[in-house]
C-alpha cells in the first residue's frame, strides 16, 4: 500500500476567508479572496468540519470521520480523491 501521503497534514482554509451557507441538498462555500463559490455535497462539509484550522493527517481524518459518522465506504482512495478536490479548489491547504 502506498502511504507516501501519510504524513501530509491537511487543514481547512481560515474560516474568516469563507462564508458557508447550508442549502437543502448541498452547501455553498464562498471563498472571499477569489470570489469563487464552491457548491459542495456530502462528504465535503463533514470533512471540512473535521479538519478545522488545526489540520490533521489523512489517517487521523479517517479515524475522526469513522467516530463521528457511520462510514459506509471507509476507503482511503476515496478520501484521497475528496482531499485532492478540496486542495485543487483552494478550500484545504497542505503542510
Amino acid at each position, binding site marked *: 500500500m502506498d502511504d507516501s501521503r501519510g504524513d501530509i497534514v491537511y487543514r481547512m482554509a481560515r474560516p474568516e476567508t469563507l462564508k458557508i451557507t447550508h442549502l437543502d441538498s448541498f452547501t455553498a462555500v464562498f471563498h472571499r*479572496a*477569489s*470570489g*469563487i*463559490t*464552491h*457548491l*459542495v*455535497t*456530502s*462528504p*465535503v462539509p*463533514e470533512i471540512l468540519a473535521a479538519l478545522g484550522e488545526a489540520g490533521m493527517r489523512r489517517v487521523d481524518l479517517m479515524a475522526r*470521520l469513522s467516530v*463521528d*459518522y*457511520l*462510514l*459506509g*465506504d*471507509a*476507503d482511503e*482512495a*476515496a*478520501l*484521497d*480523491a*475528496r482531499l485532492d*478536490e*478540496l486542495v485543487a*479548489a483552494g*478550500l484545504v491547504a497542505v503542510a
Partner: protein
Amino acid sequence: MNDDTPELPNTTRRRALMLGAVGAAAVVSIRPALASTAASISTCEIPVPDSGRAGSYIAADGTVVPAGTRGAFAPPGRPFKGEEVKTALAGGQLPGTNYEQSRAYTNYIRRLQSGTSGFTCFASLQMPRG
C-alpha cells in the same frame, strides 16, 4: 476507576456518511461571471438610491429613508461611476460631496443587494483583476 460504562446504542446517534467513488466529484466551482475590463469598471454606474426610490434620502448608515428625514442626506442627483466608487471605497471621497455625504452614500453602496440597480457594477469593483 469505574469501567462499567453502559453500552449506549450509537446507531441512532451517528448518521451515515459515504466518501463517494474515486471518480466522482463533490465540488463544483462557480467563477463570478462578471466581466471586469478596465473600461467597464470606469463606465459602469451606481445610482444612489436606485431609480425605483429616486428622491428618497440616504441615512448616515446607508439605509434609504423618506425624503426630508432629519439627519439624512438628499440624494446626489447623479449616478456615480465605478471608478469614482472604487476610489471612495479605498478611503477617498465621492466627487461633489462632503465627508458625511460621501460616507452615507458609500454605506448605501456597500449595502447593495443582488437585484438592485448598481449591484453588478459594485460587485465588479471587488473582483480581483486578471
